[in-house]
């Protein structure tokens, strides 16, 4: 019987159910055990599975990730949390130097079936480090996978896939929509494949690619442009690395136009990669320049300035129109 959950609850359920069927899964990080996480994502896990498998650590992100490397080598499946994605930077060295490379360095002898979870993205009127989007940084590192869900259903299915993946996955949770809406989520486990985007709706005039919390804003924009007779094909990327190229390439072959919408800063963001791929694979089908609508190349602004930074549905709608009318 399906339950109606928001994203926090969906992720929690994924963890609950997977820990039940796989004893090698351990969950740890700052404040995840007793308190259940500052966003309550890991609530009640310790109660159910005990301190050995769900525990709190000293405040040290590098060690949280570094020890997870050791644990994974030693046969466990650690799911560690970075309290905010902006706090993953102290662990950057461990992530880039070891998490991403252990399989390659050991020629396949050791692999790291671990997950690093973190709330990411802006829109909750919080400071920098609590609002930034740096998925591009990690997406560029060979050996890592980066996943960003946009709905509760997807969050659960993708997290389960991430947990079961024998390679490390960064599971970035868009905190702005942690509780913004609910959705039917089946009880019991199910997997949504990593590396597969989703065509949320079909359209003829333009392909729009987005992920995370931005998907809802794009959907609002799509309603706005419907009255102007513009039909949009919306693709939720879901996996940032490895990117599902086929999804939007085939779409662009049909529509001839593409717009990427993301929160992260413009320069060298994931939008740039998508556009390059479109260039490589669908050049002759283009009827307008591939475009991206993104955050500015600035540090994430303080709360009052937030609404300028994150593309609004109005801005998205206007950009869609501009591209279609090129």
């Amino acid at each position: 019987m399906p339950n109606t959950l928001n994203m926090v609850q969906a992720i929690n359920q994924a963890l609950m159910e997977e820990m039940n069927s796989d004893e090698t899964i351990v969950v740890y990080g700052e404040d995840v055990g007793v308190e259940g996480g500052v966003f309550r994502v890991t609530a009640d896990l310790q109660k159910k599975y005990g301190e050995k498998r769900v525990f709190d650590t000293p405040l040290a992100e590098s060690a949280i990730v570094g020890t997870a490397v050791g644990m994974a080598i030693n046969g466990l499946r650690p799911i560690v949390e970075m309290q905010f994605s902006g706090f993953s930077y102290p662990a950057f060295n461990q992530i880039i130097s070891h998490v991403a490379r252990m399989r390659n360095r050991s020629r396949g002898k050791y692999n790291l079936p671990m997950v690093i979870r973190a709330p990411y993205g802006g829109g909750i009127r919080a400071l920098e480090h609590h609002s930034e989007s740096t998925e591009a940084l990690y997406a560029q590192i060979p050996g890592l996978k980066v996943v960003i869900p946009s709905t509760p259903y997807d969050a659960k299915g993708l997290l389960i896939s991430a947990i079961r993946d024998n390679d490390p996955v960064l599971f970035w949770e868009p905190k702005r929509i942690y509780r913004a809406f609910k959705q039917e989520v089946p009880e019991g486990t199910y997997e949504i494949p990593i590396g597969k985007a989703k065509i949320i709706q079909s359209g003829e005039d333009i392909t729009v690619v987005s992920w995370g919390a931005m998907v809802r804003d794009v959907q609002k924009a799509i309603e706005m442009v419907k009255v102007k007779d513009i039909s949009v094909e919306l693709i939720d990327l879901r996996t940032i690395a490895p990117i599902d190229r086929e999804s939007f390439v085939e779409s662009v072959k049909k529509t001839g136009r593409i717009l990427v919408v993301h929160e992260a800063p413009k320069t060298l963001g994931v939008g740039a990669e998508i556009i390059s791929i479109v260039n490589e694979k669908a050049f002759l089908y283009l009827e307008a320049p591939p475009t991206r609508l993104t955050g500015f190349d600035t540090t994430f602004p303080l709360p009052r300035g937030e609404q300028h930074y994150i593309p609004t549905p109005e801005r998205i709608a206007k950009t869609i129109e501009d591209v279609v009318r090129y």
Partner: protein
Amino acid sequence: MRFEFQFPDIGEGIHEGIITKWLVNVGDMIKEGDSVAEVETDKVTTEIPSPKTGKIVELRANNGDTIHVGDVFVVIDTEGNAEDVSPEEIKDTLNEKKEIVEEENAGVVGEVIASSEVIAPSDENKENNEDKKDVKKALATPVARKLAKDLGVDINQIVGSGPNGRVMKEDIIKASEKLQVGKQEITLDETIKTASQAQEEKLLIEDEKIERIPLTKIRKTIAEKMTQSRFTIPHTTAMDELDVTELYELRKRYKDSLREEEINLTFMPFIIKATIAVLKQMPEFNSTLDEENDELILKKFYHIGIATDTDRGLMVPVIKDADRLSIVELAKKVDEISNKAKNNQIELKDLKGSSFTITNYGSIGGYYGIPIINYPESAILGVGRIVQKPIIKNDEIVKAWILPLSLSYDHRIIDGASGARFLNMMKELLENPEMLLLKA
């Protein structure tokens, strides 16, 4: 004026609070800054100050109730009038906005909006039943697309000649030209008015001073053909004067006797004979340029068109395989088709298929000419009136019969030197008629 006081965001990520104690009653007067209630939150118990001065009109929560940021929990009348409004009931807004309290939304920092909105269930794994419409779209680079746009051509209608059927710039230009020729909107140079400019001027003409004559079909056809020829082929004309005194004498000697055989011996048969001889040496004058395939088609047959003036207009009946006819036979043929044309007895098949055309405006009296090539041929020979003129021969002025020739040709495939050579060869044959016997 009613001021609805919403529970403010007091920071620290506080989303809601519990009213532990009201510090005012309905009807109380308060000043800005006075505390209205004590509220307990996750982090702290605090007093909430009033932002307005006035009278408390409504309290929308009870002690112990949970209120959320943004909820209206107090209504203040800022005008200060003692209103008779006593709240009938303290509305319990909490029931409406009852958030999922079990979440206890703590965010440490920031404000995570909680809502009980439910979105549509996922359609993961649902077969995409949409027919993959096989839209036939042209493959083309952005540069090509822009070119098509600029030239007003629908790129999806063009068959591409590039790899994998890609539409190349050349394809677009060609399609555009075909369009142009059909529409005939080409302007040759700025001094020629555009069709629209001419239209405008047309309208300015006073009506009673003009007469409008609808064009006949033939006239229209001629107009189209002339335009097509002149606008497609870069024409150039070489001219020369030939001293045909000896030919003149030759004709004089035989024309009377041939007349008895009902043969009208004009100069044309000789000219035709000479022309064919030269064409055999210079086949490019007897050709057609295949623009689509970038090839020059040399014709090994000699169908000579003879431009003829009729009362219905210009016609070009054709003498097929003229190279097989003797001068006398040519004379007969020329006569025959000329008469047929003038009497409107000419058949369509006789008006087609020429590989080279000769136009004799001299018969009417012209001397010089810049004839227009009979498209899609590559050259045309204009023959003017033969007149007697004084010339210098052996350092002395003598009388001579002069035949003016004007040779227009396609400068894309024939250079100036060739044009001159053609006429030189004509000269050799026609100025020494014995050469016709030997070489033609």
